[in-house]
């Protein structure tokens, strides 16, 4: 994990290396300044030596300036390194996500990917900055102070050593205990927030069923639990300060008592005793700081793990060694194809599919919810790989094509249509970067989108909001069809893409397809019989298998499912929505 993350530092290695150096230099200054301060009082003020005050004062200002520049240096480079690290993390993750196949994307879920790219990266940025600025500084400072103490008086310094060991043990116990409780507490905290989120988005359900009291009770219970867990976790951490204080005070008392004896026996000077007392604070404070850093790092390790998952995820589809770049025609052949989303797990989604579709044919696909219609067409543009058998497009196994070449020839209008923020033209040009406005308009005419675009205040330059919130469902679908048409594909797949379009328009679109792009193979998934009944042939899917394949008349005559669906929709399945 550290290696994966460390590789992301890249061009910020220098800044990352320099930061701790600056911080250490600042620590050195921080150690010198108190000595100078003491010297001003002891040798200057107490002896009335103005010259000494000037001299040491000047030295101190110099030290202050140095310390300031080191501090600023540490701050600036620390900021540079940590923000740069965050940038690289985001970039690498994003780049890797771009290579993901559908199966990879399914594995992470959209919200999972978003959190990793946002909150988790921010956590890492903060943790990294702290590691650079504090994780070197604290132990260094501790070691120096320890060495100095030993230099002055090994006997007295051994008190510190014992104290440090004891304190380190106690802090260790506290921290491990606390982290254990905190790691339990945070998921609970997330759960609570999730329940708030649920209530906010489902407020209509809550109110419609008059369940406000029920929800309040549920929330209070969860909230009470969380309160108890956090009190317990923080209660453990609360031992930190008193334990720390107790150790410091014990040390001071011991040093004072033993030190006094040593001074009286002339084994130690008074000045040395004072220095020892100063270092006491320093050593134990730094130990405290280390324990805090440790807690922070354990807490951010969850984020680190989640980021690494994305960084190390390998796309499960790869281009072949010697790819085919040309798709000869729009014929599709399924040869004994079986498919499951998770290899070797459960029943396959598609079982033993054998289909032969000629180039230029219009194929309707119909079947109930969960009959694997979408899974069937997703294999054609190799969004997933078949588990068994093979699938040929233009006479070549899809796994032998260059993926980009294949997908440029097989246009899919997905069930979950997404438009991106930008003008309508920009959205259309996803299909073809160089498309002229003329070509875009023509595609929109085919998709029956031109009429409503013309009515929009700014026509083709109308801005689509994020998620396409300013166009209706039917309009969105028509834009998505136009976008796919601009690819001039050999195969066009519509996955329930006209469900929100009224039947008359739906018919018009199909008519345009038949007349304008007769050479393109069209696969049309629909719920409505009217959308598919005029297709050359119709596939009836049932529980992952082809139940029937033939013309409307044939199926009506000998396919029970088809007849059933047809009858349930006959005498119109009109849509009253646009």
């Amino acid at each position, binding site marked *: 994990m550290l290696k994966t993350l460390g590789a992301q530092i890249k061009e910020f290695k220098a800044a990352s290396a320099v930061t701790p150096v600056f911080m250490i230099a600042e620590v050195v200054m921080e150690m010198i300044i108190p000595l100078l301060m003491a010297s*001003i*009082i002891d040798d200057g*003020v*107490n002896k*009335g030596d103005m010259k000494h005050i000037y001299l040491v*004062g000047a030295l*101190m*200002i110099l030290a*202050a300036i140095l310390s300031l520049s080191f*501090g*600023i240096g540490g*701050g*600036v480079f620390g900021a*540079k390194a940590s*923000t740069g690290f965050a940038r690289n993390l985001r970039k690498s993750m*994003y780049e890797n*996500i*771009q290579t993901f196949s559908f199966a990879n994307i399914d594995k992470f*879920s959209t919200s999972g990917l978003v*959190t990793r790219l946002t909150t988790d990266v921010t*956590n890492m940025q903060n943790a990294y*900055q702290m590691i650079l600025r504090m994780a070197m500084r604290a132990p260094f400072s501790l070691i120096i102070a320890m060495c100095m103490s030993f230099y002055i008086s090994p006997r007295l310094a051994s008190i510190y050593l014992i104290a440090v060991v004891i304190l380190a043990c106690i802090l260790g116990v506290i921290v491990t205990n606390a982290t254990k409780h905190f790691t339990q507490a945070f998921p609970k905290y997330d759960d609570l*927030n*999730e329940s708030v989120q649920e209530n*906010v*988005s*489902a407020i*209509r359900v*809550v*109110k*419609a069923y008059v*369940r406000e009291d029920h929800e*309040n009770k549920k*929330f209070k219970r969860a909230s009470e639990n969380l*309160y108890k867990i*956090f009190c317990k976790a923080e209660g453990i951490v*609360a031992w*930190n300060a*008193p334990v720390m*204080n107790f150790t410091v*005070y014990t040390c001071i*008392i011991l040093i*004072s008592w033993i030190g*006094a004896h040593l001074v009286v026996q002339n084994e130690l000077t*008074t000045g040395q005793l004072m220095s020892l007392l100063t270092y006491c604070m320093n050593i134990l404070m730094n130990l405290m700081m280390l324990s805090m850093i440790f807690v922070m790092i354990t807490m951010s390790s969850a984020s680190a793990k989640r980021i690494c998952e994305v960084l190390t995820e390998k796309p499960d589809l790869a281009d072949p060694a010697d790819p085919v770049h040309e798709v000869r025609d729009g014929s599709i052949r399924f040869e004994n194809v079986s498919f499951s989303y998770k290899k070797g797990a459960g029943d396959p989604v598609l079982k033993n599919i054998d289909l032969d579709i000629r180039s230029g044919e219009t194929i309707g696909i119909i079947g*109930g*919810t969960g009959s694997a219609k979408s899974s069937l067409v997703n294999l054609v543009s190799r969004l997933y790989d078949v588990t068994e058998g093979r699938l040929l497009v233009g006479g070549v196994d899809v796994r032998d094509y260059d993926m980009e070449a294949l*997908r440029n020839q097989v*246009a899919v209008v*997905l069930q979950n249509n*997404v438009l*991106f*923020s930008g003008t309508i033209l920009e959205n259309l040009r996803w*299909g073809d970067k160089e498309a002229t406005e003329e070509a875009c308009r023509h595609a929109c005419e085919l998709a029956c989108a031109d009429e409503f675009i013309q009515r929009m205040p700014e026509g083709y330059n109308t801005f689509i909001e994020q*998620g396409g919130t300013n166009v209706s469902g039917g309009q969105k679908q028509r834009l998505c069809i136009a976008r796919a048409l601009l690819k001039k594909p050999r195969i066009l797949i519509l996955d329930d893409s006209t469900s929100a379009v009224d039947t008359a328009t739906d*018919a018009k679109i199909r008519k345009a397809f038949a007349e304008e792009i007769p050479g393109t193979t069209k696969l049309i998934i629909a719920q409505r019989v009217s959308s598919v009944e005029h297709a050359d042939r119709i596939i009836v899917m049932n529980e992952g298998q082809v139940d029937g394949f033939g013309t409307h008349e044939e199926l009506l005559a000998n396919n029970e499912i088809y007849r059933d669906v047809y009858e349930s929709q006959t005498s*119109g*399945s009109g849509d*009253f*929505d646009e």
Partner: protein
Amino acid sequence: MAEERKPKVNQGPGPRGMRGSRPKIENPGRLLKRMLGYTFKDYAIQWVVVVICIFTTVLCTLQGTLFIGTLIDDYIVPMLGNQNPDFSPLAWAIARVACFYGLGVAASFTQSRLMIVIAQGTMKHLRDDLFEKMETLPIKYFDTHAHGDIMSLYTNDIDTMRQMISQSIPQFLNSGITVVSTLVSMIVLDIPLTVITLLMVAVMILAAKKIGSQSSRFFLAQQKDLGKLNGCIEETMTGQKVVKVFCHEEESLAQFNELNDQLCDSAYRANKFANIMGPVNAQLGNLSYVICAVSGGILAITGVSGLTLGNLASFLTLNKSFSMPINQISMQFNSIIMALAGADRIFKLMDETPEVDDGYVELVNAVRNDRGKLEESTERTGLWAWKHYHKADDTTTYQELRGDVVFDHVDFGYTDEKMILHDIVLYAKPGQKIAFVGATGAGKTTITNLINRFYDIQDGKIRYDGINVNKIKKNDLRRSLGIVLQDTHLFTGTVMENIRYGKLDATNEEVVRAAMLANADGFIRRLPDGYNTMLRGDGANLSQGQRQLLAIARAAIADPPVLILDEATSSIDTRTEKLVQRGMDALMKGRTNFVIAHRLSTVKNSDCIIVLEQGRIIERGTHDQLIEQKGKYYQLYTGNAMAQ
């Protein structure tokens, strides 16, 4: 508007502590008072103890410092050169200071334990109150506030408040006490030097302010860039599959890189200034020390103000311990202001007007007495009645709940300026099925939202069993209506719990029966744990159609006299829908049924089909009548016929 309700994109809680900007807050004093009042109310005694503990800690630390200061001069030096040194004064002094230290440890322990209870407890109360208040707010509030913003009250804002209570306030008190006591000692020692020290403090505060304002400017820029980048990430991750299908990876990467670099730049600047603040203040403190030493030295040696060298030495020690708490206070200011901004948002929600309910007609269990008249019953009888109290003649009448709904010339708009529904008149008798059809935005969903009073009408009257719905207690009104909403929402919990949501005391058998009625039993049994399968994230592991079936089962179990189905079967395939429909028809026999659908097969057998256009009823009648009329309905219908 309601029909165009789109799921609001949840921006997610912003990264913690990144809101470095200083938003304008009106009347911060009152806010602070209210916020403190919140914690003082429940934890008055604890706070008093905490303040005493802080005093004790400061006092004990002071005693410790004094002891070290006098250790050498008062205790060790007299013993030097002595053949038989007497250690007893030192032993006594150490014993004394040990007591103080012990007290200090005890005080700091008590303080940190109490602070946890206070901070976590206050947070819990705040959260509970916030939630309880939120549940009372009208739907309009949720329409007009982004869900992400509401969420961030619970995450960011409460958290910054907790930090303020648990860290800033004690730190502030601690530093404050130290500053005041040090200041007093300084003034006693020497006034001119105090003035110099104060001047330096002013410089420090100025510097802090200067850097702080720079820093907050860049923090603002960082927030903006972060928002932009998050927006981009949210958008492309949602559309990642489309990106793949169109081989658009490079373009989307280029766009991302640009925003990512921008954020990196502004984040660098913001962090840089925040990091610089500490060293600058610390070194200014050192500078102050040198200036005091030099000028104090001159004063002492020339003897102008009667400052002795001994006093100067003590003064310098004080100067050292003066700048540190000042630094700490200036750091706390930022977080206090951030907490106040959060408090402002939290109290804004708390101050929202809850849903008004002037209704007084109640829904009660009823029983028919010997003379066939309705009487109130304390048991669940299955027979419901409206308990109507008439003030004029001080009588109470009971009226059977039947489910008769009348719209009497209703006008409605979400705002008074723009009316959405105009002059709606309709009658729905028990046992009837009324269907609404029309284009998106015609006002179908809005009408159903008026029956249960999610919104209040501007003009006209809606009567339920002859009673004006405004007179009925909202909760009782809603209890008598079953609604399956357009957007299906499920809750975290088992399938069983989700269906039981419609009737909390339903037995397992009742749940299964309702699921069978909704034709959901089959797929539920195929789920890994059947009825005990946990649903998470709004039922993310179910298909849209399955979620709709569960929502229907949830409404069915409530067994209401009036049922409203708003596009409740839109994602269910037509064969399954037919089965569901059969179940629902059986359930709704003798009850009122409102249906919104764009599938003709769903509405065809309605007793009355109402065609809406731009908020007006343009046609009404049975399917056959409307076909006869050759109006809009006919057009829509034959548009389909033409395609055949």
